[in-house]
């Protein structure tokens, strides 16, 4: 039995089978997370608001995402008159693809990544902006005034937050000396003060760097308090105003998939990935614990804070985050130059 099992594992680890296994694994991981994060969000919102949240469909409302999905799928896919049909229909597909591709390089455990790319970090950030482009296409092609305003907001918001995000990530790449996500995690082994978040001897501003990364991640995933894309009290449903049925559903799922990606990245870059904080039993469990803790904090923030004003959001990025992240970049460059012996 054991021999058979190990044989199956060996076969699955060879190239064509490995690919299939990973594609299925990532797609189902994203789909399950997207569906059940909606449930987590609704339950969480309920608890924050002193109400039970969904209870009716299934035990503790656990079948609610299924019911929601079925409802969305049974609806007609409306394309408004005067909309650019191809872009309008294509945008939901385009919004989901980059997230799935980016997750291929995320190491969930030691050696547990679909692709061991030595420029994994670069790939994630190369694919990231496609998601925003898709939202813009969808909004612009639906020929709705609210959606067009939202599209303009999406672009300026994401451009503003892409810069500090990349500066912060460059700091990490410089400190680690690699863009391989596996190696970045490997370097953070040991107790929790070896995590990038607490490595103040490499750069005293490391916690600030994490904070900037976290804020940028909220803004890039268009989450509250930076949810300018939807801004339901101003722009009705923003970019998604004209989307019906599963077209809207895919945008909605992509939002959660992006949160999963963002929180995984934060875990990998700052919280030591699969490393255990007490240097025992490292593995995928710790990765998931850290990731879901970050996801919970995202939900927590959404239901606590009001939405920022649009120019306030841009001011925060251009006047505070970019200068500070530039400073940390320069500081860590200087510290590397001074402290590390030339090789």
């Amino acid at each position, binding site marked *: 039995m054991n021999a058979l099992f190990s044989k199956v594992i060996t076969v699955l680890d060879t190239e064509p089978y490995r690919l299939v296994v990973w594609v299925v694994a990532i797609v189902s991981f994203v789909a399950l997370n997207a569906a059940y994060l909606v449930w987590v969000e609704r339950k969480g*919102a309920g608890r*924050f*608001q*002193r*109400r039970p949240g969904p209870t009716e469909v299934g035990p503790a409302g656990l079948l609610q995402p299924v019911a929601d999905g079925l409802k969305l799928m049974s609806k007609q896919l409306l394309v*408004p*008159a*005067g909309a650019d049909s191809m872009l309008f229909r294509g945008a939901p597909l385009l919004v989901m693809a980059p997230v799935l591709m980016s997750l291929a390089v995320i190491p969930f455990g030691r050696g547990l990544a679909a692709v061991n790319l030595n420029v994994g970090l670069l790939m994630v950030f190369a694919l990231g902006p496609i998601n925003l482009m898709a939202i813009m296409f969808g909004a612009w092609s639906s*020929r*709705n*005034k*609210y959606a*067009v*305003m939202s599209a*303009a907001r999406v672009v300026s918001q994401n451009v503003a937050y892409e810069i500090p995000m990349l500066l912060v990530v460059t700091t990490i790449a410089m400190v680690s000396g690699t863009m391989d996500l596996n190696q970045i995690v490997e370097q953070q082994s040991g107790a929790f003060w070896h995590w990038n978040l607490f490595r103040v001897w490499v750069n005293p501003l490391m916690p600030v760097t994490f904070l900037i990364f976290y804020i940028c991640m909220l803004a890039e995933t268009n989450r*509250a*308090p930076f*949810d300018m894309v939807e*801004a*339901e*009290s*101003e722009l*009705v449903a923003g970019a998604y*105003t004209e989307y019906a049925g599963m077209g809207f559903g895919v945008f909605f799922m992509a939002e959660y998939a992006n949160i999963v990606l963002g929180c995984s990245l934060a875990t990998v870059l700052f919280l030591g990935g699969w490393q255990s904080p007490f240097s025992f039993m490292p593995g995928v469990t710790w990765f998931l614990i850290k990731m879901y803790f970050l996801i919970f904090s995202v939900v927590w923030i959404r*239901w*606590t*804070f*009001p*939405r*920022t*004003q*649009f*120019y*306030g959001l841009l001011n925060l990025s251009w006047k505070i985050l970019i200068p500070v992240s530039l400073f940390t970049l320069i500081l860590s460059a200087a510290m590397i130059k001074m402290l590390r012996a030339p090789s």
Partner: protein
Amino acid sequence: MIVSEPISRSVAGSAPNETFVLNLGPQHPATHGVLRVKMTMDGEYVVRAEPVCGYIHRMQEKMGENRTYAQYLPNTSRIDYLSAMNYTHGLVGVVERAARIQVPPRAEYIRVITSELNRISSHLVWWGAFLLDLGGFTPLLYAFDDREMILDLLEGITGARLTYCYYRFGGLYNDVDETFLKGARRFVAHMRPRLKMYRALVTENVILRKRLIGIGPISAEMCRKYGATGPVIRGSGVSYDVRRAEPYSVYPELDFDIPAYPEGDSMARYLVRMDEMAQSLRIIEQALDKLPGGPVMAEKVPRVLKLPAGDYCYAVEAARGRFMVRVVSDNKEIAYRLKLRTPCLSNLSLFEEASQGMLLADALALLGSLDLVIPDIDR
């Protein structure tokens, strides 16, 4: 909402061609009702915001002119459904003044208690809805949690949760019981720490302050020009309150402050309402302490009410400002002319001038800070 063709010059008027018209409403999440604001926008900036009223016009004034005062009484709860008690007070007040009916003191005190409870519940709805406009969803649920206590109390004595119609010409529909009095005291004790919590959690929040301070300034002159009253004018530094300016009921016997903030921005209006809730709690507590015994209905109220010929006015401070009923009587059972002066119409009319050149999100924050109830605008 489909942009079918470029906006022609005739539609946009003299504005340059880059502007476009955005129809905010009659169904829009930020207008809280069927208010339509025709916005001429230049990108995200508001060039001109023109409120279009009338989507929920129900001829309240005309109805007042073809039915008796008693038949018209339930209508008053439906003008501003969030402060029904105050509005009923306006109509019973004018009839009592015209017919010279002396209201027993117990009834007056209970009127004050219920009116102030109603004011708090109205402000709580505004608070939750305003935060909803600003993108914070959770405060609404907390506000409704507190409001539920008030609604339960008022339901216990009136049988209704929103449109109470509790006051009668000469007194009240019925007396309050011990449950209500105890419940009102419990509510006051419950609400004070809650207001503190709201202050710590919401008012001091940096995002909220950034969104409100300095946004949508309204000068006292502009308020006077458009006849804005209530928290709007008090947020512009004028401590005008009908309860002080034209005292009615037993308000002169009670000790309370009129909160006013001179800044005139959305934050000032926000703070005025938050402070007013605390003041209303003070009023309720005092009125409960002073509550005299005795009947709650005047003895000699004629079954068929004919107001002597003349022109009568009675104003009350409703949750949104000065509500006045004017009755012109020609000594018949039915008013010759009944005019309702509602605060929301005046408060809305300054929006066009005040919102010029603002960003859309700020303009909506300003609209929310005016605390509009749409049936009160259209009547």
